[in-house]
């Protein structure tokens, strides 16, 4: 729409410009700090160091293997869910598959150790048979197991919408042609699936590539160290900021390349229940073998995902609950985590809203579609700048300013805000722009602008996606350990770091209760934020 001059120049550009300025200032500041410590000679020396190559190689290797395993397992599970769209408990199972996404990584690691560890549930159950699981959990095996735990359910949820692309007419045609289940997969399902797979592969790869807490806790030594963990070790154990800076820059380059691929395929990643098309029209749903296979893989996947959660709950309840819960350190750490989560979510929410409203202004009032796309892309910049890289820059700045202790919480909150910003932005921007397209003329005519428009029109439209993404952002920030671990000087700065410290010190009983408390607080925070904001 091309409004009159007085409205054309309304300050519609400001919110996005301010948000983008903050974003670029943080990233640029962080990169400057990293760059200042990385002179050419040192970079060359680090690049020639065999340890550096080993770390990069292992980072790529574990991410590739984790991605392959997760995706190969996710395809049959997603297909089973798509082929059985109406069994009792399907909706709740798919919802629960989202649990690993919100679950603090360190808590999930605890659950995995409780199941697959030497004295874990699996060996306990196998004891009567005389069989013992002999694999070593600490090392590549543990990392792959944990990454599959996180990414298999995520990949299933991301792949399910692929089946919505298949129309009932396709199924009916296949039915009249007498196609077998294999032929259905080859000629109908695979073409739909193949448009989704690249995006899902890139997302899972990026998550595994930047995985920190899993590798830190299950890595088990220099042979199984990724770049992010190497950065942490360089800063915390060797106190070598220059090496950390070079590693962070290497991580940045590799991540930015992967993120470019992610952005290319981002538009196909949407989450639905996989129930839009009526798969009753499929010709292969009645076969007994197919049913057995589908419910078999759904059951195995459920078992794989929910057993660590159940083990976590059981061991938490069996631990010294009263002693841990009466410890004031735990509540102080929880309060700090809550403060960080609320600060991060508020900041990310405000920034996302600013960027989204300016994007809407650009596309509707200036008719600059490319500028809108560019702005939304810039808002997702942090996908290419891993939190650990930005955190390292911040850490070096605060070291230089001798202010590590005083600005720690703020720094962690800012980095967490940038971490969750792309997800919040991607969830509210499309709705805000759609609302604009629907009601722009009506609002202009009624004089609905600024706060009135936000309250009467925009907020009711974006409330649900905003509430969900802010709640998710809050839960992720609350349970995040990466940057907090970097800044930690006391061992109990936040609840996830406290849990890590207790696990590292082999205080498993206390750790079990702490893990349960942490996951319950995360779920409560998610629920409270989602409920209170979506009302």
């Amino acid at each position: 729409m091309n409004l009159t001059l007085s409205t054309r120049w309304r300050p519609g550009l400001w919110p996005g410009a301010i948000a983008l300025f903050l974003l670029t200032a943080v990233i640029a500041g962080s990169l400057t700090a990293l760059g200042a410590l990385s002179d050419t000679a040192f970079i060359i020396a680090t690049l020639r160091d065999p340890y550096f190559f080993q770390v990069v190689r292992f980072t790529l290797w574990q991410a590739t293997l984790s991605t392959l395993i997760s995706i190969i397992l996710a395809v049959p599970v997603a297909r089973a869910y798509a082929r059985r769209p109406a069994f009792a408990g399907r909706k709740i199972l798919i919802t629960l598959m989202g649990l690993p996404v919100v679950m603090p990584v360190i808590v999930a690691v605890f659950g995995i150790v409780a199941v697959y560890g030497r004295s874990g549930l699996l060996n306990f159950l196998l004891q009567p048979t005389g069989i013992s699981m002999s694999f070593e959990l600490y090392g590549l095996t543990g990392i792959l197991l944990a990454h599959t735990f996180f990414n298999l359910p995520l990949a299933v949820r991301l792949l399910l919408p692929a089946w919505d692309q298949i129309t009932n007419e396709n199924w009916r045609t296949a039915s009249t042609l007498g196609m077998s289940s294999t032929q259905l997969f080859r000629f109908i399902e695979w073409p739909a699936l193949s448009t989704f797979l690249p995006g899902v592969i890139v997302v899972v790869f990026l998550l595994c590539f930047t995985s920190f807490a899993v590798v830190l806790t299950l890595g088990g030594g220099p042979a199984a160290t990724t770049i992010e963990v190497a950065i942490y070790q360089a800063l915390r154990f060797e106190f070598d900021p220059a090496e950390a800076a070079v590693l962070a820059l290497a991580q940045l380059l590799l991540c930015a390349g992967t993120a470019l691929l992610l952005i290319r395929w981002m538009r196909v990643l949407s989450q639905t229940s996989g129930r839009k098309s009526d798969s009753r029209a499929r010709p292969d749903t009645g076969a007994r073998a197919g049913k057995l296979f589908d419910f078999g893989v759904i059951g195995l996947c459920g078992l794989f995902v929910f057993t660590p959660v159940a083990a976590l709950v059981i061991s938490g309840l069996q631990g010294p609950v009263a002693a841990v819960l009466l410890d004031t350190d735990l509540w102080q750490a929880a309060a700090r985590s809550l403060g960080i989560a609320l600060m991060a979510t508020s900041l990310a929410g405000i920034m996302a809203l600013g960027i989204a409203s300016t994007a809407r202004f650009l596309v509707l009032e200036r008719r600059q579609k490319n500028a809108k796309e560019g702005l939304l892309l810039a808002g997702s910049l942090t996908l290419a700048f891993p939190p650990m890289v930005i955190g390292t820059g911040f850490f070096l700045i605060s070291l230089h300013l001798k202010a590590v202790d005083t600005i720690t919480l703020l720094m962690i909150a800012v980095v967490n805000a940038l971490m969750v910003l792309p997800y919040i932005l991607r969830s509210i921007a499309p709705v805000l722009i759609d609302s604009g397209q629907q009601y722009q003329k009506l609002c202009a005519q009624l004089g609905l602008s600024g706060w009135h428009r936000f309250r009467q029109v925009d907020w009711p439209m974006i409330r649900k996606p905003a509430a969900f993404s802010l709640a998710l952002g809050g839960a992720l920030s609350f349970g995040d350990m990466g940057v907090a671990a970097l800044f930690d000087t006391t061992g109990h700065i936040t609840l996830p770091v406290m849990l890590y410290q207790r696990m590292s010190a082999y205080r498993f009983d206390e750790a079990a209760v702490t893990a349960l408390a942490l996951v319950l607080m995360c779920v409560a925070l998610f629920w409270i934020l989602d409920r209170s904001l979506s009302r």
Partner: protein
Amino acid sequence: MNFLKIDGVRFRQGEWQLEVDLEAKRGGCIALIGPSGAGKSTLLSLIAGFEQPNQGTIFVGEERIDTQAPARRPVTMMFQENNLFNHLTLYQNIALGCHPGLKLTEEDRELIETAMAATRLGALQSRKPADVSGGERQRAALARCLCQRRPLLLLDEPFTGLDPQLRVEMHELVDELRKTHALTVIIVSHLPHEVARIADSLAFMLGGKILKAGPADAMLSHPENPELAQYLRFTSAG
């Protein structure tokens, strides 16, 4: 004295151009007719302020309005769709015509009641748009237009989706409101014979220009312009 005066308005959109001069008397009703792409809706958008003319002026009474923001113009408009906010009740939608923040005075409340009574919506005030019929939705939009207390009402094919009987009823309601509230109405329609029941005059548009304008009866019974004659043949056939 003309109430609305569109003088030498030019508007370009790529290769396409609209060139219009039009005048309307206070309390009158002009129907803009013509095929799709003729520029009817664009002309309404220019009057309402959703588009900015490259050249020319638009006056309502003594006031030049083409430099004003849409909400400041003495104009209110109904669209073919999206006239109501789906998440608000009919009452709230109508009340937005009084205050964009829904801060209503006693006088506003009385005005809303009157508008709802005039559009026969009394019992539906707490319903949401999805819970009422298409005709009731359009009546609510009309009620809001009344609450805005603007003298010029623009209707951009608002009754297109309704069944023929309901369309006639809505046209009659518009005519009634025009007379009781002294409104000047400009209505876009693809159904010249139907809209002629309430329009004093018709303006036939083609290729961004008004090719022929005049009293409705005369235009329909003796279409001297060949393009208009052809257009009327198609619309009466349809």
